[in-house]
């Protein structure tokens, strides 16, 4: 009998999740081709409630040998994942840990706090410890929250001042408008941080249109290919990038399958670092075929 690995991830509603979907499907295709006795099923869900439903549906119709899940939120998915674990399924959690860590057989995480903190460190450095910054945040979720927290904790006590912070919903258009408004409101801005590259695209357009030269830095996050390309090309305003690679889902799927069919038990806690991508190492993070 085939061993079934279910992969439950958010639907592709913006660039980063699109990357997750891309890498998950790539993993499924490769593994299904390579291992005839493993079946990887990928399901996307547009909200936390839908993700819980999807878990119920997946487990109602067949026995799952393993579940790889990138939960929408920790609190909301903890109980439903536990219910699956209780049926004897191997649980791999990606990115957002569950509130009860004992449920996770394998935990593979990015570090959202580090995304914010590393960006802040770079800014402090580059601006010489002081400057006026505007921030665009995404949609109100944990990821966004942690990144902002990492950023704000790091600049605390330095001369970096956050002039303004508003939601732009990880959407380029909204970021474009918001940046236009920031530019109208503040005659002098030293740096911009959009905590996601989709938003950074809108920011860059708005800055370009305004013709303003006071903006020395415009940074994003997540490792979108267009932005990594800028880093490779040595862009002055966007010289670095923080990775938060959606490909972590692929890593997780492979590790889970290895545990299932390989002789090597894979358990524990893997934390992906969020090192700065600079011109020196950018090539490693450049995937021209990914949608993200």
């Amino acid at each position: 009998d085939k061993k079934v690995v279910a992969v439950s991830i958010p639907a592709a509603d913006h660039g980063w999740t699109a990357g997750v979907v891309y890498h998950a499907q790539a993993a499924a295709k490769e593994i299904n081709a390579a291992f005839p006795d493993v079946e990887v099923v990928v399901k996307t869900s547009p909200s936390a409630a839908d993700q819980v439903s999807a878990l119920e549906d997946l487990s109602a119709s067949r026995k799952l040998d393993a579940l790889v899940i990138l939960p929408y939120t920790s609190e909301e998915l903890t109980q439903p994942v536990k219910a699956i674990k209780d049926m004897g399924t191997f649980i791999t959690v990606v990115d957002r840990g569950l509130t009860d860590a004992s449920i996770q057989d394998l935990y593979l995480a990015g570090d959202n706090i580090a995304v914010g903190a590393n960006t802040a460190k770079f800014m402090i450095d580059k601006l010489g410890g002081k400057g006026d910054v505007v921030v665009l945040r995404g949609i109100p979720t944990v990821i966004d929250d942690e990144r902002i927290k990492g950023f704000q904790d790091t600049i605390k006590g330095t001369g970096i001042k956050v002039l303004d912070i508003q939601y732009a919903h990880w959407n380029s258009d909204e970021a474009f408008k918001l940046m236009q408004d920031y530019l109208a409101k503040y005659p002098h801005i030293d740096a911009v941080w959009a905590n996601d590259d989709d938003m950074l695209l809108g920011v860059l357009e708005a800055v370009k249109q305004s013709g303003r030269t006071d903006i020395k830095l415009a940074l994003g996050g997540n490792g979108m290919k267009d932005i990594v390309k800028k880093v490779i090309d040595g862009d002055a305003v966007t010289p670095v990038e923080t990775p938060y690679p959606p490909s972590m889902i692929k890593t997780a799927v492979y590790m889970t399958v290895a545990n299932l069919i390989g002789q090597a038990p894979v358990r524990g806690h893997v934390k992906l670092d969020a090192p700065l991508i600079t011109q020196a190492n950018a090539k490693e993070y450049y995937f021209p075929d990914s949608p993200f």
Partner: protein
Amino acid sequence: MTALTQSAPTRSERQYQFSWADAGPFLALAALLALGFLVNPDFLSVTNLSNVITRSAYVAIIAVGATFVISSGGLDLSVGSMVAFIAGITIMFMNMMAPSLGLWAIPAGMAIAVVTGLLCGLANGVIVTVGKIEPFIATLGTMGIFRALITYMTNGGTIPIDKSLREAYRPVYFGTLGGIPIPILISAIVAVLGAFVLYKTKYGRRCAAVGANEDVARYSGISVIKTRTIAYVIQGACVAIAAICYVPRLGAATPTTGQLWELQVITAVVIGGTALRGGKGRIWGTIAGAVILELIANLMVLSDFVSEYLVAAVQGVIIIIAMLVQRFSK
């Protein structure tokens, strides 16, 4: 012209006559079940069906309220964010009370949920009726307001329910009574009550009359403002009940809770045969509509035909086809 006395018996016959129009949503439901079975025989398994129907409970409960609002000639786009707002208030209150009240914090929180729901509904109703603002816009406004309030309350994150309450509260979603999941029981009760109020009481008659023709209602001594406001208040109560069932499922409220539920709710009501222009409400059709929507989503997960990206497209197509089936069955 003295045919009147002779034709009197016909009345009761007609009353219970089979109507294709009313049967539409149930036919669509049956068609979907058959389709599902063909796609994946597991579809009709007890576990799966019970999961799906349990899940459709939120939308069904809210949609019962929406049936009132819509048949009174209104519309409520704020229900999705109202769920989030009420869930947030409820959890905050329960967590605050847990240390002093212990498990009694749960019923206390439920009471708060209902009160909040009634007040939210009242606010919508008053803006629409007294403020005379197009319901679409008025409730779009309050939708933004509720959504912002929950974001503010959570500081953009989540409000989880206290660990000490978690287990005790869980059965409200996950428990069963006589083998039937509790949310199904609750939504059945709400539907029966809704049907009773809409079809059997004075208020229900008035509600439909206001939706059919405001002037006639006014000239018949019916207060349009009161009637329509009450419909919104009923809607608020239903949202509160849905929130009460929702909280134990995910154990937290977030700024994205209930997002786009308003569209699902309205779709359920319309698929159920209630006309958006008002004057006629069909509670049982609404329930069928809510189940249909959830079955479609379930079918998408169970079948492997459709690219992940196209799920929404297939759902759209199925909904349109379901509506066409209804039209043709008339």
